[in-house]
């Protein structure tokens, strides 16, 4: 189906299912339970999962396949966001023109930056991309304030032209009248599920982005990119010019980043300069490595992992901790709270740092490898058990590695 092998089709269908069911899957705890703190099924976080998933999928096309480690992809994220907000300001709140333009403009940026940076390889390439992104960030934060609104972030004002705004047009981002921030809520018992328009918009785009990446992985082009990673000398002596291949990969990943940046602004009509800072570039690198560079699903898992930590752990404060352990005797409760305290709330960075180290030490292939190990364990147990059925019947998000 869709030009994919049976295995890939099944994989894609699983991804589609998981993506569409996210509002339910991420809401495992009833609202009334104290574990509801760990629920992640609210629109903003789900949108972030999808958007940063797209960002990481695109980054992986460059880094995972060619091995070129860019430290400047946040620049394209920022360019995408600024483009979309400018389109709001000039045309109106329909997200479509902005998103299309975001992809085009980030592609142009990527073409220029890639053309220059790809003259070098290894760490020299990384530093060149870093330098371009940091220059963009520093200028956007200060000197370019008239275009970017600097520290405050670019936003829409009532006196902006918005020439396509009609009388009844929504006053927040929408797609032909479907307002992004509107949600439909379903309550089932103690569970509340929020199906947000913006999330499903991002989800559909993320699925398309994933499908394209799957096709690229399986294409001759993808094979060439992997060939570049493993041996450029042989590549050249096989009559292939590696520069245009890497440049194409760079531009494609830049377009993914621009799209992700555009979607950030499509969900929330504000574009801040911090999106271009090196820490943002570093974040996508970490997402990709953490999940498993060069695998299809890894970067998405990595993105989800980091965004989850950032949004969930940072909100756990002492009050919440006391709530959880209230059933214990006072002394023990205080002790346990004091022990957990440094790792949550203002200490969420610590948790993230420790998790980075644990994953990379024990799972050299990233989270995907962890998934594979679990799956293998699962299969072995299955086989040992009496009623041995086809283990493929339980793919359980079985991450798929492009070998």
């Amino acid at each position, binding site marked *: 189906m869709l030009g994919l092998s049976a295995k890939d089709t099944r994989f894609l269908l699983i991804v589609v299912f998981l993506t569409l069911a996210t509002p339910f899957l991420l809401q495992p705890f009833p609202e009334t339970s104290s574990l509801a703190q760990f629920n992640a099924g609210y629109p903003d976080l789900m949108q972030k999962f999808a958007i940063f998933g797209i960002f990481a999928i695109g980054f992986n096309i460059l880094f995972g396949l060619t*091995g070129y480690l860019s430290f400047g992809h946040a620049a394209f994220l920022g360019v995408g966001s600024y483009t979309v907000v400018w389109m709001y300001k000039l045309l109106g709140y329909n997200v479509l023109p902005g998103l299309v333009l975001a992809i085009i403009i980030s592609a142009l940026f990527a073409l220029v930056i890639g053309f220059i940076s790809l003259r*070098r390889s290894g*760490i*020299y390439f990384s530093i060149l991309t870093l330098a371009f992104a*940091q220059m963009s960030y520093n200028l956007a934060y200060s000197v370019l304030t008239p275009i970017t609104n600097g520290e405050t972030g670019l936003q829409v004002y009532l006196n902006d032209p918005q020439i396509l705004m009609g009388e009844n047009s929504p006053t927040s981002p929408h797609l032909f009248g479907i307002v992004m921030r509107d949600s439909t809520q379903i309550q089932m018992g103690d569970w509340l599920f929020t199906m947000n328009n913006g999330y499903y918009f991002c989800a559909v785009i993320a699925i398309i982005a994933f499908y394209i990446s799957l096709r690229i992985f399986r294409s001759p082009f993808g094979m060439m990119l992997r060939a570049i990673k493993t041996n450029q000398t042989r590549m050249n002596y096989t009559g292939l010019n590696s520069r245009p291949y890497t440049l194409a990969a760079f531009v494609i990943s830049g377009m993914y980043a621009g799209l992700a940046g555009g979607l950030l602004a499509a969900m929330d009509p504000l574009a801040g300069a911090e999106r271009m800072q090196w820490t943002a570039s570093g974040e996508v*690198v970490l997402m990709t*490595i953490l999940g498993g560079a060069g695998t299809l699903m890894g970067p998405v898992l990595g993105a989800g992992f980091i965004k989850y930590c950032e949004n969930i752990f940072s909100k756990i404060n002492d009050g919440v901790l006391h709530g959880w352990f209230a059933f214990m005797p006072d002394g023990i409760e205080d002790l346990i709270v004091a022990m957990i305290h440094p790792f949550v709330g203002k200490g969420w960075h610590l948790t993230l740092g420790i998790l980075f180290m644990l994953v990379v030490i024990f799972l*050299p292939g990233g989270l995907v490898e962890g998934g594979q190990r679990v799956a293998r364990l699962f299969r072995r147990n299955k086989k040992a058990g009496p009623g041995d059925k086809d283990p493929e019947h339980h793919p359980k998000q079985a991450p798929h590695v492009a070998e």
Partner: protein
Amino acid sequence: MDAILLQILNGLDKGSAYALIALGLTLIFGTLGVVNFAHGALFMIGAFCAVVMQRLLNLSYEVVDPTRTDFLGNPLKVQMPYVESWFGTEFGGGLIEWSVPLSILLAIPVMVGLGFAMERGLIKHFYKRPHADQILVTFGLAIVLQEIIKYFFGANPIPTTSPDLFSGSFDFGVLLGFDPNTIIYPYWRMVYFLFALIIIGGVFSFLQFTTFGMVVRAGMADRETVGLLGINIDRRFTIMFGLAAAVAGLAGVMYAPILSPNYHMGMDFLVLSFVVVVVGGMGSLPGAVLAGFLLGILQSFASMNEVKSIIPGIDQVIIYLIAIIILLTRPRGLMGRKGVMED
């Protein structure tokens, strides 16, 4: 003219810090082939050695002063440092005042120990892993280190003062025949510059003139061959990691009076020090030092009002601009060797 002289002085000082950090980073790149994202954190921990020393010397007992009250209306508890009561206010106070230079004594064992622990406990297992994994693990380590510091010292900058002897500034202008007050330079910054020169000189002569250094240099050039000679290069590389950590730490200790230490100062220096190392050329120690001073001085020039009025914002991007120009004209930076970190 005097303005240019001044900016050269500023640049040398900025450059000293860049050069010291880059030197340690290059030692690790060159010998171990590891991308160490925790190097900025080592610099930060060095600076906090000065804070710890200051705190240690200021360890106090409380004396209740009934004549004064604190903000809640209770009698004020006055802090009396132990060192002052043991050695008298003059000598004890002197010790407290000299806490930053004294903390070098603390920083060397702390940093070397930390370096050993890092290399043996963590980095060692990553020699054969891809650079991406090294980045992830050292970045994680950097976060952990800075969060530990934040847990104990808070997020605010902590004032760390230089000894009174070095407070104030020296008037170079008068010496060179300019008007007074045109070229002044703080004594402490001169101390820092000299200190940096001594450390850099020390590291170079260590590598140049000792057998140990020669083996390490040979190892940097060709690790396998040296290994074949039956020399235990691993142990030496551990020591090199300790040395690199000590250099970063000492750079941090002495920088504390210039930049009040805070827990994330390492991250602020991290990107910059990578740019310096790469501009200098991967694996080249002289390159790292040269690039440090070069970028320091150029950054100072770019901060001049005359320059900024022609190109607004140039001081924000100059480092990156120079990095791009140098890497495009010289493929391996100023003095880089072929084949290091190019894949």
